[in-house]
């Protein structure tokens, strides 16, 4: 009886772990997942949303994930900007980032929330110009 019960429980654990296979393959969760992160076809030209700092001379600088979203994870910083853009809260996020940047980088004049499209392969071959660039929010760094 004890063996049967243990087998039943172990079977339930294994079934739970493989159960995401019954869902749409792109569905992601934690800790049970289909692990779709690198599974889908990705094209060379894709949009990336992020926040940039414009200094007083007009030069653009990328910001760290810590300044953008209080995280070490670049992928979560980009996801936070994505959510702000799609959820209509880019202005709010811009002001939050501006407060952090004003303390950390005093020479910064403006923060922009942008979505830019690059050819990611050509980017590393030296062509760093974005194919398209949309500014969703702009705010002074203070």
């Amino acid at each position: 009886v004890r063996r049967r019960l243990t087998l039943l429980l172990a079977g339930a654990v294994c079934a739970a772990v493989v159960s995401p296979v019954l869902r749409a393959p792109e569905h992601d969760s934690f800790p049970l997942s289909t692990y779709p992160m690198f599974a889908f076809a990705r094209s060379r030209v894709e949009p990336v949303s992020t926040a940039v700092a414009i200094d007083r001379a007009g030069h653009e600088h990328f910001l760290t994930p810590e300044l953008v979203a209080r995280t070490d994870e670049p992928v979560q910083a980009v996801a936070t900007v994505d959510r702000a853009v799609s959820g209509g809260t880019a202005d709010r996020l811009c002001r939050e980032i501006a407060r952090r940047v004003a303390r950390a980088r005093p020479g910064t004049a403006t923060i922009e929330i942008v979505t830019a499209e690059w050819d990611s392969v050509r980017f590393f071959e030296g062509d760093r110009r974005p194919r398209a660039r949309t500014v969703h929010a702009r705010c002074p760094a203070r």
Partner: protein
Amino acid sequence: VPGAVITRAFFAPAPAERPAVLRVLTGGFAVVWMLARLPELLRLADRSPVGFDPVGVLGGLDAPVAPVAVRALVGVTFALGIAYTLGWRFRATGPLFALALLLLTTYRSSWGHVLHTDDLLVLHVAVLGVTRSADAWSLDAAAGRTRRPPPETGYGWPPRLMAAVLAATYLLAGIAKLRLSGFDWLDGEALRNHVAYDNLRKVVAGSPSSPLGREAVAHAWPFAAMAWFGLAVELAAPLALLHHAARRAWAAAAWAFHAGVLAMMAITFAYPLSGVAFAPLFPVERLTGAVRRTLRGRWRSPRPEPCASPSPAESPG
């Protein structure tokens, strides 16, 4: 008959030291992981609600939890992690640590992107936390607070369940590639674009990217080989449950796969790279003998005399 074979293999006897060593390894890894990530974990309390996207058991939340609760969860999880590793009051601290680690890592993944570097650790701790993994090498055992398990189940099945979970997660990742990209995945173009995009995303997010990955994306040819290798490792994971030679080969290949991901994308899957993720595949209790012999040698062996000539038995040749 296959059912009887599986049952016999699943309940094959193992010493109490096997799940105990796995408990010490997973707990030790989790405690070090939390220490290394402490600033990041504490910053979870201050994140903007703009990015909150709860997943898993926290899917019902509609806003981030209070900062004080997040900081308390970090502290409690750390304390429970130490208790779990030491095997102290394990009947309570084992399940509680599994639950606290699940909550903490789920909360960490609830910000727009699931961090799959933590899944397997959480699942392994969940298995060990609710089974008899503190009947040896623990403060409970030293204090006589353990009982022998029923002989019909024994100590062998929790490590085997961990191994099955390990294999299942890799298999699922392989199946996802076939479902989402089909066999086109194997031409390497999708992998090349993933490596390029991931490194580009790191650059624009102001983070360190992989120098090797940045150089490699200029060439198409290595990516087909890497795609074949990665998919083969993932789909072959169940073979690691069948035979000890396959186990060693698969674990080495899977470790190399993660080393490749680190080199090409600067993504650290620390749990498999540390080797702890693959420990349930092996009779890890032998480590305790090695540790004992090493400690005995350190503490009891007289120091060799300076410039002493080797005895005939130690002489080479």
